[in-house]
């Protein structure tokens, strides 16, 4: 386990370093790597200045990506379902609805993470209740319930846009499609404790999640308090999703794809998979955000569109490779 942990984490950290360099150098002004790395001379100073303006955005992207990948990995193990993902299960939609409702109700943006978290929890509970059949979560019903939740939350969000003023509606629309354009250092620092708390809880439950990955009964028969563990892991995943959504909107595929890819590289030991997924998720979203800024510069794509554009074909490829 230690060998895989070290190798997996080192590889993911390497990817993260590369994507951070990419994230700092692309955008309206393209920086050259030597200037960025040396920071000396006039070009170097400009590079440093621009990079310091981009740094908060890169940091926020990394944190959001880490949160989403962690939440996805934990839900997949908990539900013994490789298709579980905060986006597909409607958790992100619930979180976005919570934040949007808080915003139109005139609450301060500081309340936004709490409102997102509340929305994420309500959505998770509703989806879990819909998917429950004879005392257990049914796999097919879970995905259907997620679909229903997403449809419902889209309706609420669209209604909120219709009543919001023109400018607010445009900002919200971008946010709903997933955007890191309004990143500030303050936002990144506000998200960090949520990310850390979620990570700490999930790592403490990683070995239990290994037992869940074989089945809920398996975990129960080996001495795990199943209901309590499920509640805690669900809440931690909702917290991570809610926090990520409140700062960056709805970004799909990170929670689904990253654990998948990491699993095929390091195996399914959650004690390795969770931390490596967090770092790999950070790397993916930083890179996706760089692409969103560079692809049609000076115009920006919503980062959610980029993750979907990368994620969907990659996921299709993974499906074909592991039938």
């Amino acid at each position, binding site marked *: *386990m230690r060998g895989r942990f070290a190798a997996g984490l080192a590889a993911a950290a390497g990817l993260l370093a590369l994507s951070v360099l990419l994230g700092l150098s692309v955008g309206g002004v393209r920086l050259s790597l030597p200037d960025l790395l040396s920071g000396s001379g006039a070009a170097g100073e400009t590079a440093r200045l621009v990079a310091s303006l981009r740094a908060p955005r890169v940091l926020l992207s990394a944190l959001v990506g880490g949160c989403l990948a962690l939440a996805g990995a934990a839900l997949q*193990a908990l539900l*013994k*379902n*490789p298709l579980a993902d905060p986006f597909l299960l409607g958790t992100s939609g619930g979180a976005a609805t919570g934040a949007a409702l808080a915003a139109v109700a005139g609450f301060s943006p500081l309340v936004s993470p709490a409102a997102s978290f509340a929305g994420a929890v309500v959505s998770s509970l509703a989806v879990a209740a819909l998917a429950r059949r*004879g*005392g257990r979560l049914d796999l097919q019903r879970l995905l259907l319930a997620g679909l229903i939740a997403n449809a419902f939350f889209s309706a609420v969000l669209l209604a909120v846009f219709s009543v919001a003023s023109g400018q607010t509606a445009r900002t919200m629309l971008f946010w709903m499609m997933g955007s890191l354009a309004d990143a500030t250092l303050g936002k990144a620092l506000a998200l960090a404790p949520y990310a850390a708390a979620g990570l700490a809880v999930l790592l*403490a439950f*990683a*070995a*239990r999640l*290994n*037992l869940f*990955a*074989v*089945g809920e*009964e*398996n975990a*129960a*028969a*080996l*001495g*795990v*308090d199943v209901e309590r563990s499920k509640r805690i892991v669900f809440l931690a995943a909702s917290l991570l999703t809610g926090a990520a959504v409140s700062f960056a909107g709805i970004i799909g595929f990170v929670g689904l794809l990253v654990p998948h890819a990491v*699993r095929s590289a390091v*195996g*399914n*030991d959650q*004690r390795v998979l969770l931390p490596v997924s967090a770092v790999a998720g950070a790397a993916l979203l930083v890179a996706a955000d760089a692409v969103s800024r560079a692809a049609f510069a000076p115009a920006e794509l919503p980062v959610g569109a980029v993750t979907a554009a990368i994620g969907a074909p990659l996921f299709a490829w993974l499906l074909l490779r592991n039938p």
Partner: protein
Amino acid sequence: MAPPAKPVTPFVEARGLTAAYGATRALDGLDAIIGRGEIVALLGENGSGKSTFLRVVARIVAPASGELLLDGRPLAALGRRETARRTAYLPQATELVFPIRCLDLVLQGRAPWARGFSSDSPGDRDRALAAMRACDVEGLAERDASAISGGEKRRVFLARAIAQEAELWLLDEPTAGLDPRHRLEFLELLTRVHRERETTVVLVTHEIDLASDLADRVVLLRRGRALAAGAPAEILRPDLLRRAFGVESRIETGPDGKRRIVPYAPTRL
């Protein structure tokens, strides 16, 4: 030939045990005693509560009412981990969605003993590998458990129960889906490790002959209650089988002198 009567010390004791899934009552006042060191077979028609009883003892399902004692102590008073250290549950079939090495599956048996359920210390590995050797599945250690045969999977789970160092093994239809050779091999292995480790074994089965050959005692279940319990020769009789299963059966003596129960027709009411 009746097995010699052993003095029975109760290891598991159920009194008026009930359990339900939603509105469906699966156990409805079950009284049963499993003696220490015995092999006890639970027989009964589908839905009679056999598997539910195993699942209640394994703490997968919580009982609704009644008493359940493990080694003289109420199960509810025992911690979940404590219970899991003493009882191993072998599921009928485990659908594996994610890849997992057989060794890791066996190592999970050490989870109730490990801090934070994180069980792969060198000591855990030694125990897991020794258990796999005892069940002749050491060669599968690195293989993905979803890619092995049903017979191999049963052996791997038995190895896990050994690694768990549990005194009580709960087996849910351990021979279902096995071809004759794998069935016989598994039963040989089970009897051998049971004898070596002096474990108590409760097995749910639909094979009347298996219960007759292997069990020290049979508990016949019907609608969530014990219809009868005792030595196989006392219980596996046409009249009781008619009440338990609704079948007509006759007793035959095979060329090896063994008593065989042959169900031949559904009872017409």
